[in-house]
C-alpha cells in the first residue's frame, strides 16, 4: 500500500466527522484527536519495531517490553488510585504475566525466540492483562462499596480480613474473566480476530494464521486468570489494618 492510497482511507474519518456535525453529536474534536494520535503513535511504533527487528538485539527487545509494561501500568492504576501501592501491584502482575507466558512459549519452543514473535505477542498479552486489571479493579471496588455491611459483619463475628473480603474477591475475579471466556465462544463466527485478519491480509496461509490465533486465545485465558487473581490478592490486604479493621475510603477517594 502506498501512502497515497493510505491517505484515501481518511474518508473513513470524514464520514463520522460529517455525521457528528450534522447530528450535533459533538464528537468532532475527539474524533480528530483520536485520528491524529493513532497516526502518530502507530507510525512511531512501526519505525521503532523496524529498528528493533533490524537490530536483532535482546537489549532493545527488553527495553521495548519494559516500556509496554510501564505504559500499561500507568494506564491501569488510575482505576485503583485509592488502593495503597497499586502501581507496584499492577506492575508486578504484568511482569509475572509476561514472564510466565513467555517462559512457556519460548521454553517449550512454541514460537521462535525472535523479536518478530516476542514483541507482538507480549504486546497483546500485556494489553489484555492491563484491561483485565482495570475490569477487576472496577468491579472489586464497586462490589466492596455495595457490601460494606457484610464485610463488617464477617469481621464482627471473628472472621479474618480474607474471610471478610472473600465473596467480593471471588465475584470480581469471576466477573472480570467472563468477557474473555465469552468472547472466545463466538470467535471466528461473528468477527475474525484482528491479528488473524492482519496476517491473512499480509498474505499468510489462513491455516497458519488460525494456528497463531489459537495460541493467542489460549495464552489470553492464562493472562486473564493470572491478572485478576494477582491484582486481587495483592490489593485486598491493604484494605485492612493490623487490627483487622476495614480502612474507610481505602478503595474510593
Amino acid at each position, binding site marked *: 500500500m502506498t501512502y497515497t492510497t493510505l491517505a484515501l482511507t481518511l474518508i473513513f474519518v470524514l464520514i463520522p466527522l460529517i455525521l457528528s456535525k450534522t447530528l450535533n453529536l459533538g464528537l468532532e474534536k475527539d474524533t480528530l484527536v483520536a485520528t491524529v494520535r493513532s497516526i502518530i503513535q502507530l507510525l512511531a511504533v512501526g519505525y521503532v519495531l523496524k529498528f528493533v527487528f533490524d537490530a536483532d538485539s535482546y537489549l532493545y527487545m527488553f527495553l521495548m517490553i519494559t516500556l509496554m509494561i510501564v505504559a500499561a501500568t500507568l494506564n491501569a492504576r488510575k482505576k485503583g488510585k485509592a488502593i495503597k501501592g497499586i502501581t507496584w501491584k499492577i506492575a508486578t502482575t504484568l511482569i509475572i504475566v509476561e514472564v510466565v507466558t513467555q517462559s512457556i512459549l519460548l521454553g517449550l519452543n512454541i514460537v521462535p525466540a525472535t523479536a518478530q514473535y516476542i514483541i507482538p505477542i507480549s504486546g497483546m498479552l500485556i494489553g489484555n492483562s492491563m484491561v483485565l486489571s482495570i475490569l477487576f479493579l472496577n468491579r472489586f471496588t464497586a462490589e466492596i462499596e455495595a457490601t460494606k*455491611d457484610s464485610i463488617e459483619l*464477617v469481621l*464482627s*463475628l*471473628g472472621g479474618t480480613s480474607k474471610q471478610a473480603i472473600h*465473596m467480593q474477591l471471588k465475584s470480581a475475579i469471576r466477573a472480570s474473566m467472563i468477557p474473555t471466556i465469552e468472547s472466545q465462544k463466538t470467535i471466528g463466527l461473528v468477527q475474525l480476530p484482528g491479528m488473524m485478519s492482519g496476517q491473512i491480509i499480509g498474505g499468510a496461509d489462513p491455516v497458519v494464521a488460525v494456528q497463531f490465533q489459537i495460541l493467542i486465545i489460549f495464552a489470553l485465558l492464562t493472562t486473564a486468570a493470572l491478572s485478576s487473581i494477582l491484582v486481587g490478592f495483592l490489593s485486598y490486604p491493604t484494605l485492612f489494618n493490623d*487490627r483487622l479493621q476495614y480502612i474507610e475510603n481505602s478503595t474510593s477517594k
Partner: protein
Amino acid sequence: MSKNGAAIQFQDISLERGETLILKGITDTIYKGKITALVGPSGAGKTTLLKLCNGLISPTNGEIIVDQHPITEFEPTTLRRQVGIVLQNAPMIRGSVFDNLALPIKLQRSNLHTEEAISMLNNVGLDESFLTRDAYELSGGQKQKVAIARTLMNRPKILLLDEITSALDPVSKGEIEQLIRKINKEYGVTIIWITHNLQQAKDIGDFIWVMMKGQLVESGDKSIFEHTKNSKVQQFFEGKF
C-alpha cells in the same frame, strides 16, 4: 463494686473522624454479669461505642480494658468472638437462614449441625421451617431474630445489642427480652443493650447509660430516671429529643 467486677472499662475514650469528635472523654465501667441499657438521641455515638468494644474501630485516644486486659492485647478474632455484637439493621449474608447461622462456625473452619441450628432458632422464637428460607427475603423483625441467633453461635462472654427489637412486634419483643434475660442469668453473660425505647431500658437494665453528642452524660442504676441532675437528660427522658 470492686475492680474485678469490671467487664469493660473505658478510660478517657475519644474518637475523631476528620474534623469531628464522635466520642469525647468517655470514662466508666460496665459491670460483669449485668445488663447495661445504653440510651440517647440518634447520632449520640451509641453504635460507635459498641463497635469499639467489639474491636471494629479503635479509639483515637484512651484505653479500653476488657476482662482486666487492654483491648489491644487480644487477637482481634478472639476478642470479637468473646465480645459478640448484634449489629444495627441486622445485615444478612447472601444465602439461607442456615448459611447465616453457620457463618460464625464456618469462620472457624468448622460445620454447624442442623440440630444446633434448629435449637438456636427456637431460642429466638423461629421454627425450623426458617432454616431454608432466603435470608434476604425475611422481614425486618425476622432478620433481627436471625442476627441474634447468629451472634449467640459464638457463645460470647459479653454481648453487645444494637437496637435489636426496633422492628419487632410487642409479642416478639417480649420473647427476645426474656431470652436475653435468660442468657444473662443462666450463663452470666454481660450485656450492653442500645435501645431507643426508654420503657425497655427501664425494664431490662440493671444500669442505665445516657449518651449525648459523643459524651456519656449520665450513668447509674434505674433511679436516674427519677432524679437526674442533668437538665438535658431530664428533657431527653421527657421525650423532648
